[in-house]
């Protein structure tokens, strides 16, 4: 059982806790297929979506998940809040706490922001992405999708390709997949690969492989996970042109053919079509990108239920 108040990252979750979240999500997915897509489980709970960075799918997904469990949801974004008047994160959090929120879902550009809140508030804190640190619900929905398609999380070859340096998705996935003994190939240009990424993950280091060759990364892969080039985080030049990046690190049909015949192609979205992934691959038969989005609602319902349900 999930005996914790906050979900801050994958790093400190046990395998049993991860499996409990995935199993619960498996049961809760059914609610979204009903004629009336709502259960009364979290009636009377107040959930605040506190987003300091632009987001469509994560925020919407959390909102839908909360509403399907009958919680009340309030959305706060940076542009429309007192934060733009200069209020500190801590004061904002204390204010929301004083309104008796049960849960705050936070996305913040600073790594560790959710951890700071968790120490100060009575509400449960869920990390919806903090800087380049972690994005635990994305890794959980990715694991849900992989398990659904492959039936397992161990004994897999997973290629994570692209902007590793700026990617909290990559970090959370790396923690999760290596906990289960999947082999992960991280692949990027040297400029987008953090200098000591293998030191970030102290445990399970034998499952992490680094390469600058896309051919090596995708060869025999069961899962190919493409990352978005995060132009908004780039204040210098990491590669000459988008066209050149696509030539070396973009996923096209020829590269997909080097993977296993039953490979699945994943992308956390939003996609830069023609930069990290070709359109015919993104919309092709191996793509599970929209399954990831559906899984997101079930996984977030599971997390809300497990943190707030009892």
């Amino acid at each position, binding site marked *: *059982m999930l005996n914790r108040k906050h979900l801050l990252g994958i790093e400190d979750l046990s395998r049993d806790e991860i499996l409990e979240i995935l199993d619960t999500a498996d049961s809760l997915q*059914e*609610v979204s297929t009903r004629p*009336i897509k709502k259960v009364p*489980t979290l009636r009377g709970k107040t959930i605040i979506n506190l987003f300091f960075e632009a987001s469509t799918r994560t925020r919407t997904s959390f909102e839908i998940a909360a509403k399907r469990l009958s919680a009340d949801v309030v959305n706060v974004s940076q542009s429309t809040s007192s934060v733009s008047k200069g209020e500190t994160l801590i004061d904002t959090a204390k204010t929301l706490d004083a309104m008796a929120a049960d849960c705050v879902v936070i996305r913040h550009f600073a790594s560790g922001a959710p951890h700071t809140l968790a120490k100060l508030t009575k509400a449960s804190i869920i990390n919806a992405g903090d800087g380049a640190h972690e994005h635990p619900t994305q890794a959980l929905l990715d694991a849900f999708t992989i398990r659904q398609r492959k039936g397992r999380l161990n004994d897999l070859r997973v290629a994570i390709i692209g902007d590793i340096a700026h990617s909290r998705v990559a970090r959370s996935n790396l923690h999760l997949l290596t906990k289960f003994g999947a082999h992960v190939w991280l692949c990027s240009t040297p400029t987008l690969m953090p200098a000591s990424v293998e030191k970030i993950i102290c445990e399970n280091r034998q499952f992490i492989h680094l390469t600058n060759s896309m051919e090596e990364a995708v060869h025999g892969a069961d899962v190919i996970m493409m990352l978005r080039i995060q132009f908004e985080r780039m204040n210098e030049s990491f590669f000459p042109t988008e066209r050149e990046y696509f030539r070396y690190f973009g996923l096209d049909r020829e590269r997909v053919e080097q993977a296993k015949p039953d490979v699945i192609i994943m992308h956390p979205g939003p996609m830069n079509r023609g930069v990290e992934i070709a359109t015919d691959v993104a919309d092709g038969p191996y793509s599970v990108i929209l399954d990831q989005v559906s899984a997101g609602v079930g996984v977030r319902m599971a997390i809300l239920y497990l943190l707030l*349900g*009892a």
Partner: protein
Amino acid sequence: MSYNFGAMSLKLSYQLMTAEELRTTLNHMADDILKANDGRPVVLLGVQRRGVPMARRLAIRITEKAQREPQIGSLDINLYRDDLTRVAFQPVVRKTDVPPNIDDRDVILVDDVLYTGRTIRAALDALCDFGRMRTIQLAVLIDRGHRELPIEANFVGKKIATKDNEVVEVKLTEIDGEDGIYVMEKI
């Protein structure tokens, strides 16, 4: 026989039904369901967890007798509990699988033990989210009394008097590896 059940210990008080008696009782219940519904097709919905294999067994008997296979499904009521904030251990949410288009159908809820009636209250709430059934009927293996809500079963395998400190344990091969019903005492 005595063992730990969560934080409380249970000691065997007496065996209520043998494997053979359990199977015979289920067959009688299936026959009663068939008779009461006058040949109309029914949907058997098992309440997680032991109601699910029970519904499957009732369906097998009904298929043999009526030469027609009833639809079956499962229902998890944990999302509808009225005591979520009070239970010590958060319940595991299992699969709900209700057949589509059960509007205007005759639905039989199947559960192992009827006690306070709160599980069935939750199941009725859950079912209302799936449409408007023609009837909802209740089939339970054991009715042990102590109702806290105005709920009664249409089909009862056996009605017994119990004490508050007793627990009725229904064991089914599909889940527990054996068939039998035991009355246990909390110690």
